[in-house]
């Protein structure tokens, strides 16, 4: 199967203008590909730039140079040079993302937060809510919480809302930023199972998992980010 996402010569350098304009290179010459039905895991010690790569792949961070070619709507898009609205369309149609923390929207109930990505893509509100409910039930979030805004939920509860929101769509590419960090063993197992289902559905996944058990359970490929460390002296 051809890859759905190809990264080549990708680099990221932060320029800290508030600190005299110092340059902080974090990634250099990164290259890898994501294939349908497989789960790749970004490996390497903390601070090596795993999160930065994930964020560049979602368009959240701007790449300094290189290419991120994504198969999108039957064509190919370079995320590094894409217009903002192309990136927005990419997020709507092609690339899903489960962040580490839930960005809480005031006054919106958990069920609606989970259903929102589907509604945005045109699914009927009732169908979307039903699927959202299924996912939340599967992740063992008590039904009495569904209608409440998650601002006051515990970390684990918020994380489950976040996972459900990320998994509800059928994006062909799914980025996972430590989705199991604050979950108990039972719910971790549910997430592992859900990842396996995505793989069977042909989704290409890329994740960061600190939990070794989960990583071993889901990873088909490990991408060693330490290999993309910039030569700091050269910078």
């Amino acid at each position, binding site marked *: 199967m051809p890859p759905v996402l190809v990264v080549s010569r990708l680099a990221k350098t*932060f*320029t*800290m*203008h*508030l600190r005299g*304009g110092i340059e902080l290179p974090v990634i250099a010459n990164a290259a890898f590909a994501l294939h349908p039905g497989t789960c790749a895991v970004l490996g390497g010690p903390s601070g090596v730039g795993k999160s930065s790569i994930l*964020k560049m792949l979602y*368009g*959240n*961070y*701007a790449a300094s140079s290189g290419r991120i070619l994504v198969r999108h709507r039957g064509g190919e898009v370079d995320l590094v040079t894409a217009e*903002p*609205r*192309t*990136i*927005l*369309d990419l997020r709507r149609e092609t690339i899903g993302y489960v962040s580490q923390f839930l960005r809480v*929207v*005031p*006054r*919106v109930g958990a069920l609606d937060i989970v259903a929102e990505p589907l509604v*945005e893509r045109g699914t009927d509100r009732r169908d979307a809510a039903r699927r959202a409910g299924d996912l939340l039930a599967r992740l063992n979030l008590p039904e009495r919480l569904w209608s409440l805004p998650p601002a006051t939920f515990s970390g684990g509860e918020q994380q489950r809302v976040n996972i459900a929101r990320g998994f509800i769509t059928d994006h062909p590419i799914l980025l996972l930023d430590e989705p199991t960090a604050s979950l108990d063993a039972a719910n971790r197992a549910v997430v592992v199972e859900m990842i396996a289902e995505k793989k069977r559905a042909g989704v290409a996944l890329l994740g960061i998992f600190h939990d070794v058990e989960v990583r071993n359970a889901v990873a088909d490929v490990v991408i060693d980010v330490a290999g993309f460390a910039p030569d700091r002296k050269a910078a």
Partner: protein
Amino acid sequence: MNEFPLLSVRSVTKTYGARIGCADVNFDVWPGEVLAVVGESGSGKTTLLNCISTRLEPTAGTVSYRMRDGEMRDLYRLGEAERRFLLRTDWGFVHQNPADGLRMTVSAGANVGERLMAIGDRHYGRIRDTATDWLGRVEIGADRIDDQPRAFSGGMRQRLQIARNLVTAPRLVFMDEPTGGLDVSVQARLLDLLRGLVHDLGLAVIIVTHDLAVARLLSHRMMVMKDGRVVEHGLTDRLLDDPRAPYTQLLVSSILQV
């Protein structure tokens, strides 16, 4: 994806003698897209808003708008009648101070119904039904329909102003610090409401704000202004999470964390 922009702003400049209001601003807005213009007071964001909403003629540059018939028209070449018709049908303008956008001495129902009557609706019952429906959508009880906005709280007035603007199903809405004078809890409710309406109606919005949280919550794209110029422009979350212009970095690092 929609192929054509709704609004195209090219090299818009407004000077007051030697003083710059805004300079060489370029951007497009597509249907259904929310663009936030951020910057501190005096950065030229309100001048820009006025220039593109035909409230203030720019010194140079063009602003063109895709009319409902699909034709792209230069706004400053429209006739006065056409321009005013556009303003009260296809556009909305939400002022920071609701009193600037409402008729304070007529009832909430008439405030919402005015645009309908302006475009020729002459059926009282129908106008009233539509007004009731819109009051509901902005969470104002139907029992308040005959009350004047003078009797409303700040948040209610702002919601009424929004309903009054949206009743003709505009395609483009300008907002000038819509949450400006409101308490935090009231702000949150309004933001959430706006977010829902923008999404449900597929509105294109240009919102001027100095509040980055408002920009984060509502907008897809963001434009940062300083001294009348655009210093950075891009995806909202990218500008906030990976700011690159020195001024944007300063702005983002100045947010108080709760």
